[in-house]
């Protein structure tokens, strides 16, 4: 984890290093205030940061990803901009919620989805979803970007635009190593 952070600082001359802490602070600054989800090790740094929040932002642990979608919908209807954190294995649970709730009611959310099973290199249970998750999003008409330190500004701007103007969920795909993992 320490190695990871240092290597990123080394790379970025004109960008602030992308860390779990800086990313969560950034989201809160951008007025995302309601966070929920089901953990993934690739998102563990982010979720620990959220659990430590003392201000208005809060993290509500969900028991399933589709329940987290419901929670996000309720938060949005009540005026808070929601963020859903999940492993891509949760996407299957969410598809009915996205297609029969968010997409037809025009209710957005920022979805932060880890990418297990990338390039077929992972535990067996992740291989198929790691291969098809982006196709599933596309088929459902849901836009996404693979987040990196370099494209972070641009991607968050695009997400904001989709969310605020088109009222659609927008997904940020998180690869292993982008954020620190904590145990």
């Amino acid at each position, binding site marked *: 984890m320490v190695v990871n952070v240092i290597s990123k600082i080394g790379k970025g001359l004109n960008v602030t290093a992308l860390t779990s802490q800086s990313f969560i602070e950034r989201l809160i600054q951008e007025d995302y205030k309601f966070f929920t989800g089901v953990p993934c090790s690739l998102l563990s740094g982010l979720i620990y940061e959220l659990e430590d929040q003392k201000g208005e932002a809060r993290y509500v642990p969900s028991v399933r990803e589709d*329940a987290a979608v419901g929670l996000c919908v309720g938060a949005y209807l009540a005026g808070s901009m929601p963020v859903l954190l999940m492993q891509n294995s949760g996407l299957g649970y969410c598809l009915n919620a996205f297609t029969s709730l968010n997409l037809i009611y025009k209710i957005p959310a920022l979805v932060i989805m880890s990418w297990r099973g990338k390039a077929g290199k992972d535990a067996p249970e992740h291989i198929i979803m790691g291969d098809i998750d982006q196709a599933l999003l596309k088929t459902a008409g849901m836009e996404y970007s693979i987040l990196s330190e370099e494209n972070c500004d641009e991607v968050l701007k695009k997400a904001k635009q989709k969310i605020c103007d088109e009222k659609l969920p927008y997904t940020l795909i998180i690869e292993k190593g982008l954020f620190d993992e904590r145990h």
Partner: protein
Amino acid sequence: MKGTEAFQELIPLINDEPVVHANGFICRESFALKDREANFYMIGSMGLASSIGLGVALCKPDKKVIIIDGDGNVLMAMGTLAMIAAEAPKNLIHVVIDNEVYESTGSQRSISSKVRLDEVAKSTGYKNILRVEKKEKIKAAFLKLKDSEGPNFLLIKVEPGFDPATGRVTHTPEEITDRFMRSIG
């Protein structure tokens, strides 16, 4: 009592509270009886009325929030009962119209005849739980739960008997969102 009678007792007790409805006949009964801007008619996403209601309640702590759920919906998302109990919003009332069937799809039996949903709510940690079987009892039970700190659970045991002539929700999903958000402010 028939489900319809339960709605006839319950709906007049609701003032300006936001109400999130489970899908199927529950939306239609409420819509036909009294359409309101503060009604969120969830026409798809079976099981999620409870999590939507929880989200609203957490983000609007000063408003009483009502969920009108069905037994099939609750059984599909039983983990959400645990989330409601864990987050413990004081302003949430979860009403379940329990006809022991999936009436909207042809009255196939559900398992709520064997599993007591009020006991489930109780063991997860809801604050006040009431179960009513007679329509004369609905008013007192609901008002009592509305006046006590939640999360509260009202189980209304009913017989199936939906009138298929009852209208469908005529608002588009987008209109439902806009109206609800406007009403909640």
